[in-house]
C-alpha cells in the first residue's frame, strides 16, 4: 500500500511537471490514434453511407461483413499487419514495420469498421425519414448521400469519438506492429504495459491517469453532443 501511494504521488508529480518522456508518449499516442480515426472517417463515412442507401449486389453481405469486422481482435489485426509489413511480407519493401505509420495502418483497420457500421445505421435511419422528400425534390443519389451525411453530422461525430476511444485504448495491435520502441513507437498503452512489467509504477500510473482522463473527456464530448443536438434540432 505504501508503494501505491508513493507511486501515485510520483505519478501526479510527473503529470504536473509535464515530464518530457510522458509528453512525448502522449503526443505520439494522440498523433497515431487521431490519424487513424481521420483516415477511418474518410473511408468509413462514405462506405457506411453507400451501404445504407446504395443499390448494388452484395450490399447486404458487405454490411454483415463490416458489422463482423467491428469486433476484430486487435492482436489478430496486429499480427496480420505485421505479416504484411514484415521484411518477407508483400509490403516489406516499404519498411514500415516498427514505425508510427504501421501503427496508424493497424488502428485504421480496427476503427474503419466501427465508423462504417455506425454510419450505416445512422444513415439508414435518417434515410427512412428523408428518402421520399429527397426523391420528390429530385435530389441525385450523390446529393442524397451528401445531404444525409450532413444532416447526421452529430451522430457521425459521435461515431468518430467512439472510434477515437477504441483507438486510444487499444494495445495489442500497436504493440505488435510498433514494437514499443522508446522515442519512436511508444504509446500510452504499450508504455503502461512495459512500465508495469518493469515495476515502474509511477510512470505507468501517470499514463493510466491520462488515458482515463482522455476517455472521460471523449465520453463527455459524446454526451454533450447528444444533448446539444437534441436541444438545437441541429440548427
Amino acid at each position, binding site marked *: 500500500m505504501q508503494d501505491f501511494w508513493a507511486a501515485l504521488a510520483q505519478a501526479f508529480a510527473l503529470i504536473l511537471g509535464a515530464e518530457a518522456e510522458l509528453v512525448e508518449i502522449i503526443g505520439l499516442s494522440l498523433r497515431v490514434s487521431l490519424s487513424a480515426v481521420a483516415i477511418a472517417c474518410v473511408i468509413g463515412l462514405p462506405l457506411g453511407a453507400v451501404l445504407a442507401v446504395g443499390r448494388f449486389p452484395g450490399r447486404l453481405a458487405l454490411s454483415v461483413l463490416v458489422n463482423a469486422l467491428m469486433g476484430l481482435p486487435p492482436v489478430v489485426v496486429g499480427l496480420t499487419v505485421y505479416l504484411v509489413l514484415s521484411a518477407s511480407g508483400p509490403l516489406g519493401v516499404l519498411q514500415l514495420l516498427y514505425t508510427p505509420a504501421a501503427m496508424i495502418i493497424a488502428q485504421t483497420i480496427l476503427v474503419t469498421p466501427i465508423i462504417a457500421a455506425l454510419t450505416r445505421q445512422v444513415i439508414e435511419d435518417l434515410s427512412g425519414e428523408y428518402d421520399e422528400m429527397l426523391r420528390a*425534390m429530385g435530389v441525385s443519389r450523390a446529393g442524397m448521400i451528401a445531404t444525409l451525411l450532413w444532416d447526421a453530422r452529430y451522430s457521425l461525430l459521435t461515431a468518430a469519438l467512439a472510434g477515437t476511444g477504441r483507438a486510444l485504448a487499444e494495445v495489442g495491435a500497436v504493440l505488435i506492429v510498433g514494437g514499443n520502441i522508446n522515442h519512436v513507437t511508444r504509446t500510452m498503452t504499450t508504455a503502461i504495459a512495459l512500465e508495469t512489467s518493469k515495476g515502474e509504477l509511477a510512470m505507468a500510473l501517470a499514463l493510466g491517469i491520462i488515458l482515463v482522463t482522455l476517455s472521460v473527456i471523449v465520453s463527455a464530448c459524446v454526451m454533450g453532443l447528444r444533448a446539444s443536438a437534441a436541444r438545437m434540432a*441541429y440548427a
Partner: protein
Amino acid sequence: MRDVAEPPRPGLWPVTLRAVAFRAGGQTLIDGLDLELAPGALTCVMGPNGAGKSLLVRLIAGLIAPTEGTITYGSAGAPAKNRIAVVFQRPVLLRRSAAANLDHALKTYGMPRAARPGRIAALLSEAGLTAQAGQAARLLSGGEQQRLALVRALAAEPDLLLLDEPAANLDPQATAMLEALIRRASSEGVKVVLVTHDRDQARRMAEEVILLHRGRIAERAPAQAFFENPKSPEARAYLAGRLLL
C-alpha cells in the same frame, strides 16, 4: 416566380392515370382509378380519413409505383425533374436552419450559389418567416414548418404542385397567408392539387373537386356543382358529414 406570359414547358401534360391500382398488405387501397390532370383549375381532393388521398398524391408524384395500371406524363412514363413539387401531410424538413433548407432546395433545383441568397430572402418573406431565417427548421412551430415546406416546394417553380393537407395545423391567419400563396401560384399557371379535409377551405379554394372514397373517385365536378348539387350518394353523404370509410 415564373413569368406569367411564359408558355408552359411541354412534356408533363396531361398527367394520366389509367386503371391505377395500389395494393399493400392484402388490401386494395387505390382501386382502378382513372384520372387526367391538365393545367388550369385548382383541384381539391377530398374524402374521409384513409380514403387514399395521400397515396394518390404519392402515385401522381411518382414516389410509389402503381401495382396495376399506368401513369403517364405527356408521352413519358416518369415526370421530368422538378416539374412536380410535393408538400407532404407531415412535412419533412432538414436538420438545418430555415434558410439552409431553402438553400438546399434551390441548389438541388440548379440555382447558382450567387443567386440563392436573394431568392431565399424572398421566399422567407413570402412565408412570413424572415425573422426565423437562422432558426432550426425543426424547432419552428407546426404552422411555420408547413409554410416553409410550401415555399420550398414553390422554389422548384413546378408545373404541378401537390399539397397534402398543407393547412392542417394552421391558425386562421396563417391559413389565409398559405391560401394566398397557393392562389398566387395557381394564378401564375401552376396546376395545384390540394388535398383537404376542410370544407370551408375547399369552398374558398377549389375550382374543381374530386371526392375520393375507398380508393375510387366517387365524384369529380366543378366546385360549385359539387357543393350545391352533388350527384353521387357518397358526395351527398360526405357533405352532410356522414360519409365514413
